[in-house]
């Protein structure tokens, strides 16, 4: 039951990975979801370090992109 649901979820998130800043943000979120699901399918809990790092880098890149568009400068 868990295996089937894991593969259904994998299909859903992979389908969703198909605009600009919001698209970048959503893409990072979906990539984190994919990494978590791969970790659960493989039964390996070292994937979560990667997910945590991707969450941090994704947030910083979104903010930097927003700030660049808004101010024309990232570090003022």
């Amino acid at each position: 039951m868990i295996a089937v649901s894991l593969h259904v979820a994998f299909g859903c998130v992979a389908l969703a990975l198909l605009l600009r800043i919001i698209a970048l943000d959503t893409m990072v979120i979906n990539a984190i979801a994919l990494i978590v699901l791969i970790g659960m399918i493989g039964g390996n809990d070292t994937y979560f370090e990667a997910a945590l790092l991707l969450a941090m880098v994704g947030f910083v890149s979104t903010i930097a992109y927003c700030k660049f568009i808004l101010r024309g400068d990232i570090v003022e």
Partner: protein
Amino acid sequence: MSVALDLVITGLILLGAAFVLIGSWGLVRLTSTMERLHGPTKATTLGLGALLAASVVFFQAKLDVWTAHELLISLFLFITAPISANMIAKVHLHRLRTGANAEQDSIAGSPPPPDAEGDWATFEAPKPGNPAATANT
């Protein structure tokens, strides 16, 4: 592993997957930027939150290891998702659009240039003498 635990994990995984899919589909379907903001925020909080909770229960039940990384990730995402959404909305309000749907002025006006005086806030406090400044007094 008991059937009840299996049901809980399966339910959380399917709930999270459904919300991530709905959020991304909303990004495709909705028309304006402000509407499009709704999709990814729900995908972040509900979808990834449910997936990470499922993974905590899964690893606890299956491998008998307690991992706190998922809780760290969900805490971090819950803190950063509103900030990203706020920044995206701010860019949308200030941005000058060109191209097919050209607009003369952005909704909130252009932001102050980097070296000038001005607040980071999108809508600053009303200037003295402005009718809005005396509205609440």
